[in-house]
C-alpha cells in the first residue's frame, strides 16, 4: 500500500545543534516534526511511504500514484494545491495553527483528525472529526514514588511556551521552580520522574504538547491553561495506554 505523507515538517538528517534555542535540539525542530515522524515509525509493515513536500510546485503530482494520502501540515500548501489535495480525500492530521483558507481540505478530509479536543474548539469554522494525540515511546518514561516538591517547566525557549507565566505560577504558591530548555530528552524525563508539578501556561495555542503527556505518565500533576490541549484520559497508566493505542486507531482510519 503506497501512502503519501504531505508536510513541510520533516526531521533533520542529523543531530546537528538547533539554529537557536527556540527549536528543539536533535532531529526535530518542534513537536509537529516529532509527532509526525513518530507516527510514521509505527505504521503497519505493508505501508510504503511517499514523502511529499508541498514547497515544490509539482510535488502533488506524486499523489496520482498512491493509494491513500495523509496530510501532516497545510501551512505551506498553496491555494491551488489545496484544491488538488481536497480531491484526494486525505486523512488530515494537523498540529499547527489553521487558517480558514484550508477549509476545503478540512471539509474533504477522510477523516479529519484533531490532535486534541481543545484544538477542535479553537477552530469553530472547521468540521468535527476524530481525535488522536500521537505516539511516542512511553517505555522510556520513569515514575518515582517520592516527588521532590518542585514545579518543572520543560520546553523550547519560545515565547509561546509561557516560561514567565509558569514561573509566576510557582512563585505564587511558594514552590521551587525548575526550567529546562534545549536539554536532551533523557534529562527532561529524569526531571519529570521526580517533579511534583509540570507547568505549561502557554501564551498561544499548543494543541497537545508531548511534554505534558510525558509528564503525566511520569507522575507529575500537570498544570496548563486554556491554550494547551490535553489527552482525553487522565492518570499515568491510562495516559500511557492511550498513547500506545493511538497508532492502531490512526492507521485504522486509513
Amino acid at each position, binding site marked *: 500500500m503506497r501512502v503519501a505523507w504531505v508536510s513541510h515538517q520533516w526531521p533533520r538528517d542529523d543531530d546537528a545543534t538547533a539554529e537557536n534555542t527556540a527549536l528543539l535540539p536533535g532531529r526535530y525542530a518542534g513537536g509537529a516534526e516529532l509527532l509526525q515522524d513518530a507516527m510514521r515509525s509505527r505504521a503497519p509493515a505493508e505501508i510504503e511511504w511517499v514523502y511529499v513536500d508541498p514547497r515544490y510546485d509539482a510535488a502533488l503530482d506524486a499523489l496520482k500514484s498512491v493509494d491513500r494520502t495523509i496530510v501532516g501540515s497545510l501551512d505551506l500548501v498553496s491555494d491551488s494545491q489545496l484544491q488538488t489535495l481536497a480531491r484526494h480525500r486525505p486523512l488530515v492530521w494537523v498540529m499547527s495553527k489553521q487558517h480558514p483558507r484550508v477549509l476545503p481540505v478540512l471539509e474533504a478530509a477522510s477523516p479529519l483528525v484533531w490532535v486534541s479536543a481543545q484544538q477542535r474548539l479553537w477552530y469553530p469554522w472547521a468540521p468535527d472529526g476524530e481525535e488522536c494525540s500521537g505516539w511516542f515511546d512511553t517505555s522510556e518514561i520513569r515514575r518515582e514514588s517520592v516527588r521532590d516538591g518542585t514545579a518543572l517547566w520543560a520546553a523550547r525557549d519560545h*515565547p509561546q511556551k509561557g516560561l*514567565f*507565566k509558569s514561573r509566576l505560577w510557582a*512563585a505564587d504558591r511558594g514552590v521551587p521552580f525548575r526550567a529546562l530548555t534545549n536539554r536532551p530528552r533523557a534529562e527532561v524525563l529524569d526531571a519529570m520522574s521526580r517533579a511534583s508539578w509540570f507547568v505549561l501556561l502557554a501564551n498561544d495555542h499548543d494543541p497537545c504538547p508531548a511534554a505534558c503527556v510525558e509528564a503525566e505518565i511520569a507522575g507529575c500533576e500537570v498544570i496548563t491553561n486554556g491554550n494547551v490541549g490535553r489527552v482525553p484520559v487522565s492518570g499515568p497508566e491510562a495516559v500511557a495506554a492511550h498513547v500506545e493505542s493511538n497508532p492502531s486507531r490512526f492507521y485504522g482510519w486509513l
Partner: protein
Amino acid sequence: MNPAVHWWSNSPHAPTGYGTQTKAVAHRLADQGFPVSIGSNYGLEGVGVQDVTEGGSPCPVYPRGYDGYSQDTIAAHWKDWSRRNPDRPSLLVTLYDVWVLTAPSLREVPAIASWVPLDHMTVPPKVLNWLRQPNVAPIAMSRFGRDALERLDVQATYIPHTFEDVFRPRDRAAADDLLDVPQDAFVVMMNAANKGRAPTRKAWSENLLALAMFLKDHPDAVAYIHTEPVTPFGIDLPALAEAAGIPKDRLTFPGAYPYRIGAYSEDMLARLYSRADVLLAVSMGEGFGIPTVEAQACGTRVIGSDCAATPELLGPDSWKVEGQPEWDPEQGAFWFRPHVHAIVAALREAYKEGGGRSQKAISHVGQYAAKNVVLKRWPDLIRSLAA
C-alpha cells in the same frame, strides 16, 4: 545575589496612592540589599537622577519622560539601571494603570512584573492584552483582581497594597487643630483625589447628592472632604456641592495652600480619620482603595462600593453600597455607578450607630499592614521572577 529592580510608578515622596505604595516597598527592598531604582511617572521632572530617602535606604529616582506616561523613558531607565548592576538578574516592576504601557521597547525587557489595578467590574481589553504578554507577570493588588484574571485564564499572584503604622487610632480630640467642627458633631469624611472629569471615578455627584440629603435630615452632622476642591484636571467641587444643596457651613475642605504644598502629613491624616465618624469612600471602582484600609486602621468604619476591590477591604461592621453597571467606552468595560439612595441609607445607618472606634475594623485591616505584607511577599517573588 539579589536582583536589580527598576520600579516604575510615582515618586516615593509623591502623596498619592502609587507614591505611598512605592515608598512602602522600594525602600524596604533596598534595606534588604536589593539594588532598587525608581522610574518616576509623576513626582520628579526636569532634573537628573535624585537619591530619595523616605524612611529607608536611598533609592535613585529617575525623572519622568516627555510622554504623558513616560513611555519614552521607561525602558531606557530600566536598561540604564541594569547596566549599572551588570552581574545581577533584573526585573522591571510597574505600579500604574497598565493600559498606558505602549512603548514598543518594553517587548525587549525580559521580565516585567505589573502590580496592576483592576478597578472596573470587568477587565478592560487593553489591560488584558498587556497582562497576556509573554514577558509580563501580573500581580493583582486585590483578590477581586486575581479572581477576575483567573476567570480569563491569566495566571496572576496577589499582593495587596498596604498602610503604615502611623495609621492607628488617635484620640478624637487630636484633630481639633485641623478640623474646625463642634466637638459633638457627626463627621462624614471623604479622602479622594479630585482628578478626572469624564468619568469622575470618585462618583462625586452621587456622593455629594447623598451627603446633601443626609445632612438635611441630620443637623448635627458635617462633611469634611480631604481633597483639593478645585483643580484644572478635576471638577469644581464647591459648585457641585452648591448645586446639590449642601449648605456652605456644613462642608469643609483642607486649607488649599497647605494641601497643595504637601503640608498634610500621614500623621495629620491619621488624626483626621480618627476624628471622623465614618469615611465615605464610595466610587465607580477601586483598584485597591488605600483610604479604606487607612481609616479602618484608625478605627473608623467605611461606606464603600459593592464593587471591584472594595468589598474585600471592608470590615464586618462597615457598609457596602449597591449600584449598577455603566459602560466605559474608553476602556471597553463596565464601571459601577453607585445608587444615591443606597449611599444615603448607609450614611443613616452609620449615624444611627454613632461612629466611634471599631475594633472589628482595626482587626480586619491588620492583613494589610505594611509590616505584615511587604517583606513576606516581595523579596521571594522578585527573586523568582528576575531574569
